């Protein structure tokens, strides 16, 4: 590579460092590049058909040493020492165990100290590092982009492809800069940033792009907070989201079980320091957001782009010019059981869910615990707290957070995807309304007929106190911890 190379974006740098062979041809007719994959994460739901495909074709798993599996989607969060009650769930988990054994894949099973949501486990073990390519049969793989990795979700055919070849045929993504400058007000978090971004560009706005989150507001965020932002890139339609690694990133990775050590560490950091968009690099699109103006953000509808500031009202169909948008609003309000014009803060919920790959890390649990400490839960609300991994659960217990949640009247569960999606016993009842720190408010996502409002951990906690959608500033005389 010449020193006079034209300026590159972060995404382009990581891409170019992973080209096994460039696609032939020019322009539109150019075939995809073959891209090497540094880390392949597996879970029970999207892998069984891929393993079966390998077996049927008589193919090997090329790199078991770049592959790791965990159980998360189907797993219960209560009585985890008992056999899984749901037979099909149990079969799927057992299939993963058999497959991992047969192909020599490292697996962290239910009950293991490293088990948990796949996107919490990778970073926690230090397996997610800057400049890597990371894939998983799960759209929230974008989470790992918080480290300056190019990380994206793939379908089961691609899972099989990576198993057999440790690579993927891909066309380069376009790049979009999401510039967030300024300082977040107290009570406003990275979850509010990403919900505001999605509302601004729409659920299809990021299609075909890798988003790079930049600016002073992003640089000031912790790794846990950065993971929350990158996690929801997919909800804007983007394949991946990235943040350039910096001292905060290096500090997080250092000393973790799989972090480079000794001379390797120095070589790694020297390499990682180049992982930023060059001065003068051009993005295919740019978006600007002022962090100073952001408020706690919540969704009212049935896709993550249907959100407003917590202090605003539920929109009405008449607010929309386009006929299709008007119909979409009408349909969403009908499903959600809401009337246009209702103040968001008047919406009463039945359940509060703190968890999911979006918001189940230590910082999320600490922030929520600080809000509820010494307060009383609204008696009509049930609150479920689900740490993202067994390790997070242990750490939280060592800090006494479990006791804060239990004293408040919340349920303290074992790690897993839990109520983020209706695949395990944790589900909403028909018509039940939930303030959820997860990532999707689709119809039926948390259980058939369930109604979801996406919120930050701070809003979730305050809502559990008041019973209606609330932010910590709505709680009388309550010092806000974040």
């Amino acid at each position, binding site marked *: 590579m010449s020193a006079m190379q034209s300026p590159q974006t972060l995404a382009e740098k990581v891409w170019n460092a992973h080209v*096994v062979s460039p696609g032939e041809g020019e322009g*539109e*007719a150019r*075939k995809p590049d*073959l891209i*090497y994959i540094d*880390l392949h994460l597996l879970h029970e*739901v999207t892998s*069984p*058909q891929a393993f*079966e*495909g390998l077996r049927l074709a008589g193919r090997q798993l090329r790199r*078991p*040493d*770049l*592959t790791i599996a965990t159980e998360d989607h*189907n797993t219960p969060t209560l009585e985890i020492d008992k056999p899984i009650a749901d037979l*099909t769930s149990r079969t*799927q988990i057992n299939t993963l165990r058999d497959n991992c054994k047969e192909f020599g894949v490292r697996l962290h099973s239910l009950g293991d*100290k490293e088990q948990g949501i796949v996107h919490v486990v990778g970073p926690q073990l230090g*397996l997610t*590092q800057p400049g890597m390519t990371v894939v998983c*049969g*799960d*759209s929230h793989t974008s989470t790992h982009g918080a480290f300056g990795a190019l990380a994206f979700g*793939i*379908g*089961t055919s*691609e899972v099989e*492809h990576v198993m*057999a*070849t*440790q690579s993927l*045929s891909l066309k380069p993504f376009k790049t979009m800069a999401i510039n967030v400058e300024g300082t977040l007000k107290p009570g406003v978090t990275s979850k509010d940033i990403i919900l505001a971004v999605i509302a601004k560009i729409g*659920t*299809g706005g990021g*299609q075909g792009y890798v988003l790079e989150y930049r600016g002073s507001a992003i640089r000031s965020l912790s790794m846990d907070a950065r993971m929350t932002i990158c996690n929801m890139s*997919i909800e804007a*339609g983007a*394949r991946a989201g990235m943040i350039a690694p910096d001292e905060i990133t290096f500090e997080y990775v250092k000393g*973790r*079980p*799989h972090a*480079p050590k000794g001379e*390797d*560490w120095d*070589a790694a950091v020297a390499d990682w320091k180049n992982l930023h968009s060059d001065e003068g690099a051009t993005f295919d699109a740019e978006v600007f957001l002022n962090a100073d103006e952001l408020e706690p953000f919540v969704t009212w509808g049935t896709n993550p782009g249907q959100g407003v500031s917590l202090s605003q009202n539920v929109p009405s169909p008449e607010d929309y010019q386009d006929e*299709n*948008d008007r*119909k*979409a609003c009408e*349909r969403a309000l009908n499903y959600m059981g809401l009337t246009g014009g209702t103040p968001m803060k008047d919406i009463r919920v039945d359940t509060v869910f703190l968890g999911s790959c979006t918001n189940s890390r230590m910082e999320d649990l600490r922030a929520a615990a600080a809000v509820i400490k010494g307060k009383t839960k609204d008696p009509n609300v049930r609150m479920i707290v689900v740490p993202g991994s067994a*390790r997070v659960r242990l750490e939280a217990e060592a800090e006494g957070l479990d006791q804060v949640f239990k004293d408040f009247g919340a349920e303290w569960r074992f790690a897993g995807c839990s109520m983020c999606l*209706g*695949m395990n016993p944790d589900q909403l009842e028909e018509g039940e309304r939930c303030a959820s720190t997860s990532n*999707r408010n*689709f*119809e*039926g*996502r948390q259980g058939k007929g369930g109604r979801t409002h996406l919120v930050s951990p701070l809003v979730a906690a305050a809502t559990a106190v008041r019973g209606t959608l609330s932010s910590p500033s709505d709680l009388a005389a309550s010092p806000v911890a974040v």
Partner: protein
Amino acid sequence: MEKILTHTGIGVPLRQSNVDTDQIIPAVYLKRITRTGFEDALFAGWRRDENFILNQAPYNKGSVLVAGPDFGTGSSREHAVWALKDYGFKAVISARFADIFRGNSGKQGLVAAEVAQGDIELIWKELENNPGTTVSVDLESRTVQCGSISAPFQIDDYTRWRLMEGLDDIGLTLQQEDAITAYEAKRPEFKPKTLPAQTAG
């Protein structure tokens, strides 16, 4: 994979935007470990409503789904494509597809044809006014045909070529195995390995 050059079948108008993969196949159906047999799971939530389009003849025999923009958003589940195929769909038409869904379709021989929303509005009207009208999707000329409406569609060259040739992706890549091995020999030493397993103890 079977070769596809052109397909003609009954068009199903689905006047809705943001059809996410949780709607196409709810998570509860993802527990199966097979690759086929998902026809009952397609739009399972919506099919409980007797007015839903797939509960009406002749649309229930449809094989070309004509949907609103942002089709296939959300979860990466390839089960969404399997369910559409198992039900009998050969092609989906929309003004915009989610990236992962479009990729999964190409791997499984489901044509994801991107047609301008203006043309989709015309096709919707035709299919609603004359139920049972067929839609043709022709990969060679990249056009869709419905009644008197003819509209171009977009699909990337590589996916089109693979669909028309019925090529297996993994087989294609394994032809480049030497290049993969050469790349692996040059990877930096500091890149992490999952084995042997390290934990925080």
